[in-house]
């Protein structure tokens, strides 16, 4: 697609100074700006429909089921192994340095502040984000979105709002599960690995000594930011799909890749902001 604003109605008439400036930008930069802007506008349009959320309760539950309940097993499995590997690696590295007593705190803090929310968000992007992008892209390509619009049913209200509300509700749940499962993974590995051999009791005592609920909360806030971002980005990319069935696949890829990049980029800034 050429670097023009032909897609938007704003390009009608004489282009403004800003629009002409934007045309001169390198295409990737333009696309980043375009993506950011359209995602934020989608958020704005969606938030206008918040009062109608009670009427979307059925869809909200359906999305909660998809985002939360059906995503839980994979989050559990993944974070169990993440916690285990964390314990294993730090136990291995710490053997000679003498900090293996701190494995509890290390795994606890890392899971709660970083890997719990990030892994939950990554899985959300891979599992739910792709599904959202695919569903909305196909609805767009097969004119279902157009049909909604002619029926005066805003797609934001029916398609985006329930997902956004569901992700806000379910992300803390997924994240706390990722945290706890990861902690237990670390505890089990710490006990049964011969060069670590730390009792779960002292593992958790150490974890408790160095952790505060604020660490967990910090992670939960991060997870919410990631979750909202993933859902918005995937909805936006799905709803902006143009063309035929082939573009559905392209949209899904783009949605997932964009989500993953954004998770890690936002991770840095949110972490810094919460410090």
């Amino acid at each position, binding site marked *: 697609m050429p670097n023009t604003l032909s897609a938007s109605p704003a390009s009608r008439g004489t282009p403004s100074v800003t629009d002409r400036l934007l045309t001169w930008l390198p295409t990737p930069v333009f696309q980043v700006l375009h993506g950011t802007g359209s995602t934020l506008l989608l958020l704005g349009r969606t938030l206008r429909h918040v009062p109608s959320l009670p009427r979307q309760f*059925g*869809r909200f*539950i*359906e999305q*909660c*089921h998809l985002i*939360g*309940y059906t995503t*839980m097993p994979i989050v559990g499995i993944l974070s169990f192994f993440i916690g285990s590997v964390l314990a294993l690696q730090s136990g291995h590295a710490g053997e000679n340095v*003498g900090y293996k*007593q701190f494995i509890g705190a290390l795994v606890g803090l890392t899971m709660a502040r970083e890997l719990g929310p990030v892994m939950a968000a990554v899985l959300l992007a891979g599992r739910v984000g792709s599904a959202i992008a695919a569903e909305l892209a196909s609805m767009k390509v097969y004119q279902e979105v157009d049909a909604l619009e002619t029926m005066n049913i805003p797609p934001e209200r029916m398609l985006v709002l329930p997902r956004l509300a569901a992700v806000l*509700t*379910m992300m*803390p*749940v*997924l994240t*706390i*599960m990722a*945290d*706890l499962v990861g902690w*237990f993974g670390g*505890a*089990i590995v710490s006990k049964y690995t011969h060069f670590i051999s730390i*009792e*779960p*009791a*002292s593992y*958790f*005592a150490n*974890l*408790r*000594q160095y*952790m*505060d*609920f*604020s*660490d*967990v*909360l910090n992670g*939960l806030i991060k997870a919410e930011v990631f979750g909202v971002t993933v859902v918005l980005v995937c909805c936006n990319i799905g709803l902006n799909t143009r063309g035929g069935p082939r573009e559905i696949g392209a949209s899904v890829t783009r949605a997932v890749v964009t989500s993953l990049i954004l998770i890690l980029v936002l991770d840095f800034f949110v972490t810094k902001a919460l410090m």
Partner: protein
Amino acid sequence: MTNNPQQTARVGLFFLLGMALIWVTFETLSGGKLWFKDKGYQLVAGFDSLKELKAGDDVRMAGVKIGDVALTRLAGRRAEAVLRIDSDKRIKADATATIVTQGLIGTGYVSIDLGTDAAPFLPAGGEIRTAATADLNSVMAQLGDLGRKLEGALGGLGTSLNGDSRQPGLLQKVDTILTENRENLSRTTANLQQITDKVNRGEGTLGRLLNDSRLHDELLAGVTELKQGATQARSFLANAEELVAEVKRGRGTLGALVYDQKAADDLKASLASLREVSEQLAQGRGTLGQLLKDDSLVRETRALLKKADRAIDNLDDTGPITAVGVVANGLF
């Protein structure tokens, strides 16, 4: 579009479970307090050495966490720890802060005792009284040292007093010396008596240490040494008293004794050091004194043993039940 009721129920269950877990984590990690760190107020505690203490370590009063170490710094010839105390926890001006080393790996905390009721509260930014505490290693070293010293002193005394064929004039000046030191001697005797009584009754650290069969061998050995010393001291003092009484009654062979300056000096020095030791013990100064006065060493040692015990217990039950049990008992 209607939802399958099972789906709704699952979502509800899942959500409630998640919230419950968050709540439990909150209770476990923060004890139900708000997550925002209480700014609290600060106190300064000066020590000769902060040992393993570092910023972030707990400050506890009677074992309850009331704050943490905000920072550690060097101030002139001493080390200072700035303590952040929760704003709802007030500390009496006569409370004493000590550094407690917890476990062998050296995680420490600052322990503050309750102080007395009468004392005023410390103001924010004030300086808290501190006391140095012994850690286990230096106690061991000093205990052995002390035992040897005591033995040496008593041995020397015995030789001086009993004399041998080459030094027949030893007791010529005993009368004078004993008269000069009479007061000291009786104080020493009283102190030692008190100490040994306490030890026998199982009071104080030393007593408890003796009564605790599971204690570290080294510690036990040290204490045994000490006890021997004390017994020797008692018998020596009994002898000395008898002697004094005999001299008083005008009996014995004092006149025949040859004056021996060296032996007299030895005796004097021995008595002086014995007095010093007993006084220090009584006042609770020095390592041994602290041992007698202060329970913290015993508590520390006990805690170590308990931890080891628990570890051994945990080794016994294995399997998936353990994980749950550990959560129930250990974490939550």
